């Protein structure tokens, strides 16, 4: 049971890292990026090909993948989101869904539907602490996720830039009045949020298969984590992500592995029932 719990915690940290990027984008620009899962998929493929073609280990290429995804986020914002910002909310939802579909199909075309994984990375193997054995890739990924989470929290809550973010989230027009350019802040948020998910994606390749639809699974979990944690709340996304990981592993341990994903959605509905705005209110 302790092993299941620790595995849940580690998975939860990874979910939280994926969710934080979405929470940032969602909270500041008020856009649900339905292609968030596909951004993760791009990150995983980037890490995979860097390893396969250039022999760069994912743990070392993760920052490069983060920069690459940051560029993808910037491009997405400037080409698509910016022009729809003043339109109906559903247009943005469908646009990002269409983008996700395009990215997924491009991955099918260029990389084929085959599942791929990386053999013998730097962090292959397992670690034993006391009576608990854990996969080393999961441990490393969880620790790195914790680092990314820490950096994001520091950026948003302890820097001048973070205060500008929160000002734009409060009221775009007022922020513009005091000299904060909303569009530039939005673009920066998309860069940072996408970079975070790219980083998480690179680390995932050390122990998870890469295939075009991988983003759908993690994307949905990210949506649930952000929504359950509370709209636009980074602490909420963190707590919710870890909670999801633990719920998933505990259900797999006590009930049945086949039902562990169902429990996530059921708990999600129950939480929203009692807390219509999620565990944490708006920041």
């Amino acid at each position, binding site marked *: 049971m302790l092993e299941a719990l620790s595995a849940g915690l580690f998975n939860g940290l990874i979910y939280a890292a994926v969710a934080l990027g979405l929470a940032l984008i969602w909270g500041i620009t008020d856009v649900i990026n339905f292609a968030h899962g596909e951004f993760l998929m791009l990150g995983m493929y980037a890490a995979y090909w860097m390893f396969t073609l250039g022999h760069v280990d994912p743990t070392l290429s993760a920052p490069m993948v983060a920069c690459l995804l940051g560029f993808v986020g910037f491009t997405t914002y400037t080409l698509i989101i910016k022009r*729809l910002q003043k*339109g109906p909310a559903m247009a943005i939802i469908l*646009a990002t869904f*269409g983008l996700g579909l395009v990215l997924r199909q491009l991955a099918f*075309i260029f990389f084929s539907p085959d599942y791929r994984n990386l053999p013998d990375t730097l962090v292959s193997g397992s670690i034993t602490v006391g009576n608990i054995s854990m996969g080393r890739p999961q441990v490393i990924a969880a620790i790195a996720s914790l680092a990314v989470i820490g950096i994001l929290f520091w950026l948003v809550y302890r820097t001048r830039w973070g205060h500008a973010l929160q000002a734009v989230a409060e009221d775009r027009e007022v922020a513009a009045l005091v000299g904060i350019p909303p569009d530039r802040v939005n673009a920066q948020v998309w860069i940072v949020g996408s970079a975070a998910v790219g980083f998480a994606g690179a680390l995932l390749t050390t122990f998870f298969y890469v295939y075009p639809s991988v983003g759908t699974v993690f994307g949905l979990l990210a949506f649930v984590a952000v929504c359950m944690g509370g709209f636009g709340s980074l602490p909420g996304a963190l707590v919710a992500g870890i909670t999801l990981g633990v719920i998933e592993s505990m259900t797999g341990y006590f009930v049945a592995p086949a*039902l562990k*994903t*169902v429990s996530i959605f059921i708990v999600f509905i129950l939480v*929203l029932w009692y807390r219509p705005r999620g565990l944490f209110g708006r920041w």
Partner: protein
Amino acid sequence: MNSSIDRPASPPASAKRAGSSRRPLLIAVLVAALLAAAPVFVKDAFTIQVLLMVIMFGALGAAWNLVGGFLGRVSFGHCVFVGVGGYTTILLLQHLKLTPIIGIPLGGLLSAAIAWVVGGPTLRLAGHYFAMATIALLQIGLLLMINWQWAGGAVGLEAPIAEAPWMLLFRSKVPYYWIAIGLALLTFLATWFLVHSKVGFYWRAINGDESAARSLGVPADRYKMLAFVLSGGITGVWGGFFAMYVGFIEPESMFSLSLSVQVVLVAILGGVGSLLGPWLGAALLIPLSEGTRVMWGSSGLGLDLLIFGLAILLVTMFLPGGLVTLRRRRGAARR
């Protein structure tokens, strides 16, 4: 005050208005008759298939529109009702030998009941929360059906292959086409009457400003639930029909997020909050989808879905209000 004085003084205007308001119904009947006559002239099975899909998605979009358009709550999990309706119909047919003529309405009723149960917790949610909650419901339905062996599990269920009209089993697809037209006409009439009644005005009041509507005495919770239940019920009926038409159902196809989004897209492309929008959207989008599938689907590269995704992107970027806004825009320019 002024308008109330003017109204009794101009009976011809009100009569003219009443006359013009009936025109959509006549047009709907005419269109249905024309579509029903299509198999006489068109022998191509593919064209009948595309027409049927257009009709079905138009109806699904119209049902979704009650919640998404007139009530203003975006549901991305509406296909949970398609799944419930479809499975109910096939399970009743398989286990109780019950004719789908009864099973399909029962599927609609069960979908409405489920909508009523889940409407309680979800309709309290605002904006994005409602969207995510409906997606979660869809995933719950999908995962439960995958693991429910009595209902076929991940393998799925088949309708028997036979020629039995009373069991809605035909070897040709044309009878299903006619059934679809009948159901679509009923769907349009139902949505038209709902939207033009007190119910519809209450929905739009809630959509515009829920707090203000409440303060004016609109029982918002009851009417939100009504929209959700009616929408779920209609969608469930079409789920039952879809199951009979396709003949084979399994969790991934009946509880599909992509299908859900396609329904939303149909309604949005045509123009939400308008009675004609979903049908227009379906008429444009489904032929595009089927056409790209025929032209590029066999390449095995998924080009059809790529083009479909690009189409979604371009349409939402350049026409965010939907097709009906084109007409309004032109009207505005004319004025």
